[in-house]
């Protein structure tokens, strides 16, 4: 036990000695945590619209006013032809084209049905389908209002849909994102710190010195892991406090449950870092491997794009992605108030990963040393 405490003292001294590393591993994530959620804004209010109005009637003008008055669209230009409007889309000045055909008002009176043509820049599928849906519903509501004007007795008919947003009634995009960003930062710091540390001892040759001492492997590895485990927990705690102070997020579920899960999760991630370090000879290799996996973890973690939207095989892969479990559990406990029973499958998965990764790392470490 005393060997372990001596090792811990050594590791902590090394960590606190290097002020630059300490500053980067605390200040950079905290800055990002404060600033970057502001980038996430899917309340799309700046859809640039180009209008080609071949009709130039009262009705077409009313409809355009209704659209621009909705607050979602910004009228960029009235163009005389579709090809001019298309050029605006090509140069990214417009996202959407609305084309109203010649004789729109007159034919609507006569033939009862008229088409308007909408073209959407669909490279960003998300923005395109949202923009298209907004425009559709504004035109539908405009349609209803002109019907009511013509026949005041006509009541709206058909099946109406009302939407309710649970767990986030204001549809605040940041609410869903912040727990995920915190999960990512804790993962990146824990994984990178533990992977680089042992490789550095390898690279500088100091690991040989430790190998010839009577220090047991178990103590050596615990001595490496415990400081990073504590550091990552500190970052996590700062993140929780900041998300309350800055964004008013109060965990709906048990904070204790959250900490218990993160405690096990960090053992898994530190074990992963350790595993990477046993396979690498230089710090550069370890950095690239950690980069590769953390990037895969975050982009396949369900934070930026839903796991449901991934192909079937990828959804199976995400079962083995520790970060996907953490992001889901953070959202469940913090926003939905899920209980231990609710998150049990994730808990078991993470516990299994923690065991497998650490055992694998220790076995592999013995072989190479």
């Amino acid at each position, binding site marked *: 036990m005393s060997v372990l405490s001596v090792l811990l003292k050594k590791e902590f001294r090394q960590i606190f000695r290097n002020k630059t590393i300490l500053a980067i591993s605390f200040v950079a994530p905290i800055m990002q945590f404060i600033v970057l959620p502001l980038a996430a804004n899917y309340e799309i209010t700046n859809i640039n619209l180009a209008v080609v109005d071949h009709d130039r009637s009262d009705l077409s003008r009313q409809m355009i006013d209704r659209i621009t008055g909705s607050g979602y669209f910004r009228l960029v230009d009235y163009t005389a032809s579709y090809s001019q409007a298309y050029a605006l889309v090509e140069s990214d000045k417009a996202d959407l084209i609305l084309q109203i055909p010649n004789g729109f008002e007159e034919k609507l009176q006569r033939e009862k049905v008229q088409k*308007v043509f909408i073209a959407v820049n669909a*490279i960003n599928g998300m923005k395109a*389908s949202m923009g298209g849906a907004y425009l559709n519903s504004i035109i539908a509501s405009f349609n209803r209002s002109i019907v009511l004007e013509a026949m005041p007795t006509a009541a709206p*008919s058909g099946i109406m849909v009302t939407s309710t947003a649970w767990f986030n009634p204001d549809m605040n995009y940041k609410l869903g994102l912040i727990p995920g960003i915190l999960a*990512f930062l804790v993962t990146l710091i824990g994984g990178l710190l533990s992977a680089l540390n042992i490789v550095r001892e390898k690279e500088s040759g100091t690991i040989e010195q430790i190998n010839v001492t009577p220090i047991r492997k178990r103590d050596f590895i615990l001595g490496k892991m415990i400081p990073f485990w504590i550091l990552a927990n500190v970052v996590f705690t700062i993140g929780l406090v900041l998300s309350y102070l800055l964004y008013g997020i109060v965990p709906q579920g048990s904070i204790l449950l959250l900490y218990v899960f993160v405690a096990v999760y960090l053992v898994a991630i530190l074990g992963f870092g350790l595993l990477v370090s046993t396979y690498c000879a*230089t710090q550069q290799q370890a950095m690239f491997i950690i980069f590769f996996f953390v990037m895969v973890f975050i982009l396949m973690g369900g934070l930026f794009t839903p796991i449901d*939207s991934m*192909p079937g095989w990828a959804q199976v892969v995400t079962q083995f992605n520790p970060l996907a479990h953490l992001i889901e559990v953070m959202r469940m406990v913090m926003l939905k108030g899920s209980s231990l029973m*609710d998150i049990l499958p994730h808990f078991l998965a993470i516990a299994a990963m923690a065991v497998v990764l650490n055992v694998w790392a220790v076995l592999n470490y013995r072989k190479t040393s």
Partner: protein
Amino acid sequence: MMHASMGTQGKRPAHLSQLLSFVRKEFRHVLRDRKTLLILFGMPVVQVLLFGFVLSNEVKNTQIIVVDHAKDQASQALIEKIKASHYFTVVADTVPQSGVAAAFRQGKIKAALVFPVNFQNDLLHDGRNTVQVIADATDINLANTIGNYLTAIITDYSRSQQPALAMPYVILPEIRMLYNPELRGAPNFVPGVMAMVLMLVSVMMTAVAIVREKEMGTMEVLLVSPMRPALIILSKAIPYLILSFINLLAILLLSTTVLDLPISGSLLLLLAESMLFITTCLTLGIFISIVTDTQQTAMFVSLIGMMLPTIMLSGFMFPIEDMPYPLQVVANIVPSRWYYVIVKDIMIKGAGFSAVWRETAVLAGMAAFLFIVCVKKFKIRLA
């Protein structure tokens, strides 16, 4: 001293041969370390390919729950209609409403659809009724998309049940999706992922290049050699530039064949722009290498410091024009933000140089600025 005696004519070739021999030396360093080389070649290509397949915002087989208080013909018909679409999987129906909250908390479902009692009767007698869609808004993207899809299916069904007679005037919007008619994820995400991966990998490759020599003490040797700082910097960057070029070719080949994303514009222009972008990022890496003292610091700056900002500020996850103004300014100094626009324009839209000259100028300016700063900073260390 030696150079002066060789006269002005001999100066350039002398520098050139110096540079070449240094480039050769750096190349040998890179090639000798087989494991790192394998990582550097395989990693970016695998990432772009993987993320090209995986990233998408489509809704498919999303699990929902149906609470059918009516259980009449109309509600059943509508449920069948929803089941028939490949967008949703109904995991359970006719539960008591209290089960909905539990299902959400267990993370089993993403949305619930609630039919009121007398669903059909209301429709027959009043001509209207209401369905409630409850979405799990902890993922706003998904909640919005699910809401849109369900509304579209229901409206469609409603329209098919009661033809035009109810509406004296009908304005039918006809929507065409330009460039990406099937709304696939790849046309948006592949350029974004390319920008992000190439940038981070390029920065990380050179970030340790000079600081490693400092750490190992070989820097002294380099400094007493007649090499100029600019040439040392160039010789550090060139092997990685060539390596990145090969990676780039592999990425483009795979995105054309495997991801089914042909290059609509000029391949030559795309390659040239890509090399400019990679040069900018390699120079940024060298800058990090010059201002840091240890490899670990350089790695922390280039990975912890840059990874998340690059993902979030490149513009392909979150549109830059919707960000708050100060953040737009920050996004503008992220090189991948400009390259993403360039790739999207050339590769997907098939635009020419006239469409991307501004972005090109910004990248070239960044590269020149970083290079000058590197040379200046490097000299200070020499003194």
